[in-house]
């Protein structure tokens, strides 16, 4: 019985230490899929078929290509910057976590100023889409997935 008690106590101490360390430095993982949508040809990249199936119900593009994937690890109030193919920048700042939702600020910057600045709350592990910036003969679509381990 004493051994069992010692094991339980040790597990709890380990658990609390793990939680405490996680709370001290919460990492936020951001993944951005950069998609090129156009009508140049009829093609759908299989890697993004789930997103494209959703997009096709809203927009009439026939070509969806995954042209880049960015993964970055950041912290709350720390800016994550992603260079975009059309000389723009995507800035993502995780602001807070509230009841399983992550508050994010997303800024799409052009050289002459920002074209979108938004704050939204997304469920941990959820994905949002930002689309519309012109690129070549079509537009860019960004699939932003955010996840934190606490």
């Amino acid at each position, binding site marked *: *019985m*004493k051994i*069992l*008690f010692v094991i*339980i*106590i040790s*597990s*709890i101490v380990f*658990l*609390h230490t793990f*939680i405490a360390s*996680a*709370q001290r430095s919460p990492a936020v993982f951001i993944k951005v899929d950069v998609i090129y949508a156009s009508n140049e040809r009829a093609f759908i990249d299989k890697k993004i078929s*789930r*997103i494209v*199936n*959703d*997009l096709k*119900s*809203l927009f009439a593009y026939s070509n969806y290509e995954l042209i880049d994937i960015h993964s970055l690890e950041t912290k709350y109030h720390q800016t994550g910057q992603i260079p975009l193919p059309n000389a723009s920048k995507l800035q993502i700042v995780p602001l807070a976590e509230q*009841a*399983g*939702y992550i*508050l994010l600020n*997303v800024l*799409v910057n*052009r050289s*002459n*100023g*920002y*074209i*979108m*600045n*938004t*704050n*939204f*709350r*997304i*469920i*941990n*592990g*959820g*994905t*949002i*889409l*930002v*689309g*519309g*910036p*012109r690129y070549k003969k079509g537009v860019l679509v960004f699939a932003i997935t955010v996840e934190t381990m*606490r």
Partner: protein
Amino acid sequence: MESSSRCKYYKLVGPFVDNELSDSQKQDMALHVENCAECFNEVNKAQQTGLLIRENLIVEPTNDAMREIWENIHTELTNSHNFKTQQKRSVLKHFNKAKFWISAAAALIVISVGTLFYSFPYKTGNLQSNHCFVESIDSASASIMVFETPKNKMTVFWIFENESSS
């Protein structure tokens, strides 16, 4: 050699005196003893020996001896009672101890599970969900519309750039 000269009833003297013979044997033996001097003497001797033994063995105990006996009985009974009480106390003590450890373990398990759920609330939710709440949105040089995809309920921010801004 001695046994061959002796009366054939001689062997029955002992059982006769000790009343171990059957009724018919007793009757035979009684008739024989009246006519056989040897057996009559043996029976007398055996009866006298038996009397002597009984007289010497059946001794009335003295008061001191009785007191000692009762004291011993009392001590034995008291010890037995104390032992049983001690056993009961020991069992209760062990039970209480076990109860304490079980309660402590249960409380710790509840606390740790609670801590886990408190620290990882989203783990209980649906991670595949894309719930999103837009709090603010603005643009310096474009129009923005917000949609929700019908299948996966993904929020879509669509930027309609002006010709001049691109």
